[in-house]
């Protein structure tokens, strides 16, 4: 039996990107919620709740990039030039919010500067990631395996809308995380933020789900032909159920419920995109197989992933376990 390495690698990259979106999603979401929680002590708790985790969370982004280069150079070398500007903006925004973790707590007079850097950097990073997603979904112009479009091809109403969609999804995850980690007024406000974010997520998911098939016959055919229609119907139905669950969990003030609802919604949205776009590595031009690297590299890397990834997951989980519980009340002298 020979392994279908490109297929396996599509799964690995998809897993890395999903981990990134879920994990960095909630810590970027904390930054998005900063403007709505102006009190300094609240902000200390918000930042402390993610300070030990953000670096590990962002490492999944590097794995996504590095993995894409290693496994699907045909996609990496097309997508990065095509989405050059939003990617540069995302990187600079991540720089600002990343350094804010250390600088903010060292600052006294200039604390407001790093509060702003953290909030604006997080929001801008989330927006540009959503724009990158939109630019990806709407397709990239490729000729002879190279990007052949213009510098602003990505800039469409659709991409701006997915930008807002991803940002509101991150806000939902951030609010869910805060509900788990915070107490008192901060936690109360997090429930209100979660509700607003949930409504936004519902709207944006609905719009993307309708707009994409209307724009792209390929996606419409995937979902709305028989027998696919029946096989795939559970995805939107489960999404509706997750939205409902989120609504109830927020209304009844569950502790973990809103966060879990956020994770489920991202999971389902992600699944929906994967179904829509398979087998493309660069929609609607380059397939996963066309973009894949040569087998020896994929094999070598896969051995590494199989051996090392479980370890990574174990000590990542250990790190979360060490810093479990409410933030800001025990531990730091």
């Amino acid at each position, binding site marked *: 039996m020979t392994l279908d390495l490109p297929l396996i690698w599509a799964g690995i990259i998809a897993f890395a990107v999903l981990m990134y979106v879920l994990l960095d999603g909630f810590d970027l979401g904390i930054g998005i919620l900063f403007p709505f929680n102006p009190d300094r002590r609240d902000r200390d708790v918000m930042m402390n709740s993610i300070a*030990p985790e953000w670096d590990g969370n962002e490492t999944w982004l590097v794995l996504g990039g590095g993995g894409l280069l290693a496994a699907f150079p045909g996609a990496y070398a097309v997508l990065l030039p095509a989405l050059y500007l939003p990617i540069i903006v995302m990187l600079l925004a991540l720089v600002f919010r990343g350094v804010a973790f*250390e600088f903010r707590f060292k600052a006294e007079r200039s604390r407001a500067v790093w509060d702003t850097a953290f909030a604006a950097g997080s929001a801008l990073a989330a927006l540009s990631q959503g724009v990158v997603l939109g630019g990806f979904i709407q397709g990239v112009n490729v000729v002879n395996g190279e990007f052949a479009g213009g510098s602003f091809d990505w800039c469409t109403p659709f991409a701006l809308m997915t930008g807002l969609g991803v940002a509101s999804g991150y806000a939902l995850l951030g609010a869910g995380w805060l509900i788990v980690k915070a107490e008192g007024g901060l936690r109360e406000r997090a429930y209100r933020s979660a509700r607003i974010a949930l409504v936004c997520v519902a709207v944006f998911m609905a719009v993307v789900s309708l707009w994409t098939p209307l724009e792209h016959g390929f996606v419409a055919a995937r979902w709305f032909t028989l027998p696919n229609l029946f096989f795939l119907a559970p995805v939107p139905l489960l999404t509706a159920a997750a939205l409902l669950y989120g609504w109830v969990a927020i209304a009844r003030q569950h502790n973990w419920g809103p966060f879990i609802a956020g994770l489920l919604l991202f999971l389902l949205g992600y699944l929906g995109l994967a179904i829509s776009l398979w087998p493309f590595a660069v929609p609607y031009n380059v397939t996963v197989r066309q973009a894949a690297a040569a087998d020896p590299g994929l094999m070598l890397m896969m051995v590494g992933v199989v051996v090392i990834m479980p370890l990574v997951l174990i000590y990542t989980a250990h790190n979360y376990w060490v810093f479990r519980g409410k933030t800001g009340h025990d531990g730091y002298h």
Partner: protein
Amino acid sequence: MELDPVLLARTQFGFAISFHILFPTLTIGLSGFILLLEALWLRTGREAYLRLAKFWTRLFALAFGMGVVSGVVLSYLLGANFSRFSAATANVLGPLLGYEVLTAFFLEAGFLGIMLFGWNRVGPRLHLFATAMVAVGTLISAFWILAANSWMQTPAGHTFDGARFYVADWWAVIFNPSFPYRLMHMSMAAYVTAAFVVAAVSAWHLLKGRDVESARLGLRFGIGLAAVLAPLQIFIGDLHGLNVQEHQPVKIAAMEGLWETRGAAPLLLFAVPDQKAETNHFEIGVPKLASIILKHDAEGVVKGLKEVPPQDRPFVFQVFWAFRIMVGIGLAMLALSWLGALAWWRGWLERSRLLLWTFVPMGGSGFLAVLAGWSVAETGRQPWIVYGLMRTADAVSPVAAGVVLSSLLAFVAVYAALFVAWLYYSAKVIRRGPDAGDTHEPGEQGQRPMAAGN
């Protein structure tokens, strides 16, 4: 004016990677130092070790944060600016970078939280383990990224069909001819740089009378390590140079400012290389010394730049002078560390304020030497991005030059501001000193900010 997309892409990537390398250089060295301090504290129970460990962890955290954010940028900038290079070399370099993420970045990130914030969450032994994992992680990261860089300098273990590289032998790819030398040279550079930073900060604390017990300890660590490692580094550098001579003779010719192939080549102390006229102006040199250093023979023949056509030569002026700056700084570091060691042995180390003041500005010397050294390595191999096989001009992305220029300007502005902020907050931590670590800020109770190392 016509914008040169190749030069722009190189400038942007060169700027971003030069900025980045400052921080790993410091954090590789400092994490090793902090690990040593923690281990000594556990063994001896002496409080000053713990104070020093926590103090240096605060500075480490600032630098590590800068390293992380500027490093994430690079993993994407590579493809954004050099997409054709990425596509051509992905089979070879992709797995190396992938292994760096898997074995190094996750390891660092998985234990960094405990190292910085875990003092009251885990026991001292688990904390020591976390610090060790972070320190090892920084070295593993250096291993993979230098393997990748070295393969670009001295490619081996591959086949090339004119468009793409394929791996024939992984062992040969990773342990390519220049890799062991480059890995040793860079890791040692990190430790020497950190030793001088530690010596500089400790000397300043002594001069200002701040936590004198820790400062004394720190100064002795810094000087002791530097006095041993600086000569070792020069020895490794010489081996590295011989390796470059074997595999990249044109780079050596540029470093030495040698245009004609000749025996009894002089070591030039000063010259203004002129690329167009293919000669140097205002040469001052020591006869035969270059032949002695490179060939270990006064009459030895050293290859000159004219061995290859003009379009295959690097920009000699930059390579020539960057090399002199690196070597000059290295020799100054050796001299000062030995003078410091002598003063320590003779017992006048802390009495000489002049000597202490000399150590303070030398805290930055390692960073300059590292930048100069990388400038030699990377400019000296031009016009090749994969040496002898792929030209940098064929590597860039099909992105409009104006877009690259505007993002370059954004990077310069953002990085300049961050650098100032990093220096400012590091200076602030240094001013407060090791014994100020656990004091609360005025008016702050209970919910203390979770800043690193507290």
